[in-house]
């Protein structure tokens, strides 16, 4: 029973920490965020691996193999796309400074210096 309690606690705490952190992610990064968390959800690969930690029947082998392919596809694909997307975001200082200097009221974009 202690195990169950621990598992529930882990779920709740991870959900809450995730919630607090992710609520602060700027809209600009929402697509890469979803793509990355998508890759994280492929953590089911662990479950698929564990299927093979005991002797398996042919059917179980087949199902387990499909689970591994889909999970790894999700994992690798998700992380690679996220990296590609984030790499596309560029800044061109010259233009930035001009528009931040004297004009629009609310330049609340995260700047490199604040990172």
């Amino acid at each position, binding site marked *: 029973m202690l195990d169950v309690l621990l598992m529930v606690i882990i779920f709740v705490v991870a959900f809450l920490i995730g919630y607090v952190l992710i609520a602060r992610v700027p809209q600009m990064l929402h697509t890469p965020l979803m793509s990355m968390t998508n890759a994280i959800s492929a953590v089911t690969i662990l479950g698929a691996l564990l299927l093979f930690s005991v002797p398996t029947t042919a059917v179980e082998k087949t199902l387990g193999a499909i689970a591994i392919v889909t999970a*790894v596809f999700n994992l690798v694909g998700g992380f690679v796309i996220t990296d590609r997307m984030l790499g596309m975001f560029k800044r061109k200082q010259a233009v930035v400074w001009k528009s931040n200097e004297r004009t629009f009221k609310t330049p609340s974009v995260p700047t490199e210096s604040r990172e």
Partner: protein
Amino acid sequence: MSALWVDLGIILILIAGIAQFRAPRVARTGNLTAVVALLCALAVVLYRYRVLDPALVVAFAVLGTLIGGWVAARVNMIQIPAMVAFQHGAGGVAAFLVSFVELTRDTAVPLTRVAEVAALLGLVVGAATFSGSMIASGKLANRLRQTPTILPRHNGLLVATLVVIALLAVWAGVTGNAAAVLVALVALLASAIVLGIIFAVRIGGADMPVLISFLNATAGLAAAFCGIAIGNRLLIACGATVAASGSILTHVMCQAMNRGLVNVFAGLRLDSKSETTSSTVVTAASTPEGDSREPVEERGDPRVRAVSLLGDAQRVIIIPGYGMALAEASEEVVQLGERLSDMGKEILFAIHPVAGRMPGHMHVLLAEAEVDYANLRELKDVNGDFVETDVALIVGACDVVNPAAIERSDTPISGMSILRADEARHVIVCNLDERPGYSGVPNPLYSNAKTVLLLGDAKMTVSTLLQGLSCSADAAAGD
């Protein structure tokens, strides 16, 4: 106990990765941090348990890596929503397969009650996520009709499927007969797949960002249930984090459209009543429209007028909508922004939360076109600036700039936050046609005297504007 600390360490690395999603460059490190966390998790599991068929496992892992890497390297940014939806589905498949094998396998130690319930939930949520995601992906990739498909008695069917699922799950839980369990589980799997389809077909168009975010959450939830079923803490923690992320994005999207989750999923807005309302609005709006636009046409070619407005402007805010993505005009739009910027004007891009087909999609599309991301603004940060803006340039957006959301109280978009393009001194609209957006509410901005309408393909229109600006700049230099 030491195993617990190792697990907690890995979870901390993962959280550190997510915490870095602040600005694009650090986020890239954050993504790599998450990769490290998952590699550690894999290493730990391989260290703790002996995999009995290493050759088979490695072979299929390599296969998955090749497919995933190949697809990820080739996909373009317009296809991203379809791709992400497809991946949610792949995650769902893995989750329901693991749950299914755990429930059916004949082991010395039977599953505990908790594990069994969790596995049943993992099976149902995983399978529904799978089929729902496939529908979503098909719609986003334009392989399926994008508009909502409403079956007769849609909500009734949805409830009926849920009841069948509940009954089958209970039957699978109580029956002791192995053959009966197998039958029950296969039936359960089938009904969960049907559930996902019924659930997803009704959602379409501008509601897709809600659906894709929701499926993100359910994919995480399925992983977490799987984790409880096999008693793996890492799976639970990762799944819970993903579920949290998906929930937040779902909430943000619903809020941006001023709609409740139930409202979106139960299709409350698309009933016949609201359709008749909007059609009466069309006829009502069409009369003044004709009158007010006469003078504009007298002033000659609207494109010439648009170019001169842009040439005279000091401050321009560009509002891209999904129409820009459909016309594949993002590069031209970004070039136009740079051209104007080179001419000494102040340029911002104002992006509505539901401008794309998934949360943050428009930002990524513009980033692909090499926009300077420091010039991208969110709705709440930019709305006060429109009053002091000379030209609001709308490209392929309708509902998100429709003042009817504020001025009227009886439309489907009433109460939705909009970009206040109507407050700018002049408005230039580069849309395909004058038809209302997804909501079906006509946009009074189109008939406003300060608006210049440039109808037609946005890619062409924006290119024309670019050329026009270059010509006028040359002429000015010639003087």
